[in-house]
């Protein structure tokens, strides 16, 4: 193997592990916690929007924040941004209290609200000028570079922009100053699939550079593709916080088997690591509950015509969490 090839393999391996290192528990201990929420509680009168939420987001992580509508996602984001004051508990960003040190911390923070509304008279240039003046640096060049990548033209005022264009402008304002922490509330809503893909790649690259991305989304495939870790809130409480890989392992895989003859499909018993969901003619539809190696070993000695092992179904796990709430109601 040539030296160039070895170097390339090494580089690819390094990049892969740089992205994944934050998900390894031991490695995470050495990285800074960018967001730490401790017993975070928010009440609006009698209604408790968030109840004793404990959360920590490590530097360089892409952190997905999931939950059904009204679960407390936006409230959490607003507490992180110090738009709301916690009723109890605290949020720290970069080790400092978010409420006390808000303005200084926001220098390192980029935010895209879920329900983005911008000043109707602003154009891209004016936005960049004003935000640049507010942040004390010239953001025009970096802003136009992002605008080009997102295919957003200058000269159109917000009032004449489509929803997608506004979303792009909001993203530019959140990303333009290269913040160390990005808080994005459903960032891909109103973006076309091409732009969604660009954004995912961009966020991954930012995370690889050490930035932390905290984002809420309803698109589970996007979370699966992009996130290192995921937290799920339900009715104001954190019900899960795990790495996507752990969730994936727990998710189980759908397995489809086709027997050579129907009699075999009817007479052969399912092994303990396969949960038989449906039997139709020669076909079995099962859920793999054990390791893939056991399945391969078992299948090798069986008269099978076809065997399909589907990827882990994370959506089923999320749905399971969401549905528990509906059942409780």
């Amino acid at each position, binding site marked *: 193997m040539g030296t160039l090839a070895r170097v390339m393999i090494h580089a690819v391996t390094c990049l892969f592990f740089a992205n994944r290192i934050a998900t390894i528990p031991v490695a995470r201990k050495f990285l800074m916690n960018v967001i730490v929420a401790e017993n975070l509680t928010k009440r609006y009168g009698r209604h408790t929007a968030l109840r004793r939420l404990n959360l920590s987001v490590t530097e360089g992580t892409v952190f997905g924040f999931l939950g059904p509508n009204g679960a407390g996602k936006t409230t959490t984001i607003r507490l992180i941004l110090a738009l709301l004051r916690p009723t109890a508990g605290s949020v720290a960003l970069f080790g400092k209290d978010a409420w006390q040190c*808000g*303005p200084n911390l926001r220098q390192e923070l980029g935010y895209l609200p879920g329900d983005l509304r911008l000043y109707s008279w602003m154009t891209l240039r004016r936005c960049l000028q*004003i935000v640049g003046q*507010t942040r004390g640096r010239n953001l025009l060049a970096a802003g136009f570079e992002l605008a080009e990548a997102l295919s957003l033209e200058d000269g159109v005022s917000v009032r004449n922009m489509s929803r997608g264009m506004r979303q792009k402008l909001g993203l530019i304002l959140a990303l333009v100053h290269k913040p160390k922490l990005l808080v994005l509330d459903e960032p891909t809503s109103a973006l076309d699939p091409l732009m969604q893909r660009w954004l995912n790649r961009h966020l991954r690259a930012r995370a690889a550079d050490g930035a932390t991305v905290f984002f809420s989304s309803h698109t589970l495939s996007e979370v699966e593709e992009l996130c290192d870790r995921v937290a799920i809130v339900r009715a104001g409480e954190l019900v899960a916080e795990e790495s996507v890989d752990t969730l994936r392992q727990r998710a189980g895989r759908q397995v489809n088997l086709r027997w050579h003859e129907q009699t075999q499909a009817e007479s052969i018993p399912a092994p303990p690591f396969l949960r038989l969901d449906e039997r139709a003619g020669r076909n079995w539809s099962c859920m793999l509950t054990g390791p893939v190696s056991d399945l391969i070993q078992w299948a090798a000695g069986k008269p099978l015509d076809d065997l399909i092992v589907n990827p882990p179904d994370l959506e089923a796990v999320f749905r399971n969490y969401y549905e528990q709430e509906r059942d409780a109601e």
Partner: protein
Amino acid sequence: MNLGLIHKSLRETLWVTLLCGTAVMVFEAFLAYIFNTFEWDLAEQWLQSDFFQSIIKSLLGTEFNGQIGLGAIGSIAWVHPVLLALLWAHAITICTRVPAGEIDRGTIDVLLSLPVSRWRIYLCETIVWLTGGLLAIAMALLGCKIGHLFISSAEPPEWGRLLMVSANLFLLYSAVGGLALLISSLSDRRGRSVAVVFAVVLVSFFLNFLTQLWEPARSLSFLGVLHYYRPYIILRDGIWPWRDISVLACATVALWTTGGIIFSRRDVCTV
């Protein structure tokens, strides 16, 4: 102070200020011209009637003792409801922008995600508001000057005394703006804030009327903001109204500070 925020606020309030300033200037020029041209006709025909005497007394907030001179006529231009309405509308429009206006239009989340403290946002709004108010009142003086340019025989106004009136008017404007900032800080809806402040100044205006027309109401006159603005006396005596200025300045500072404290501590987000 933050340049970006000032830039944004100026961009959003420039037209309101220019429109209001121009209207004030045209109106003052018109009044200066009318009062100086038709002064004695007015005095002889209208002001002899008890009804008009009462109206003028109520507007100026003082007794004439039958002497209706150029000063009294001229001072009407500085207490005319149109002038007050224009200036108050300007103060209320600008001072209800943050936070109520920003919450109402949903832009507060973006604004508060910038690396500036709420106090700084409040201060920038205050600078833009007070600068706009100064400009509008300067335009009123300019209007007065323009009105006099068209009258060759008119007695020139005493600019020193007019400056005193302007200072008093500016503090009156500030007090109303301070109240608007306080109400805005307490509210999530701009329309509601405007309605509350408008109701308060309207009550204050009618209280001023009432106290001049109805003896038992006199004891309540100190509650109205116009009790501390008496241009007729300033133009007549040429003495700085220190008591009135102090009361209005204290009220402004108290209202502004309370508004700022509330804004800096409350939950603020799009609703």
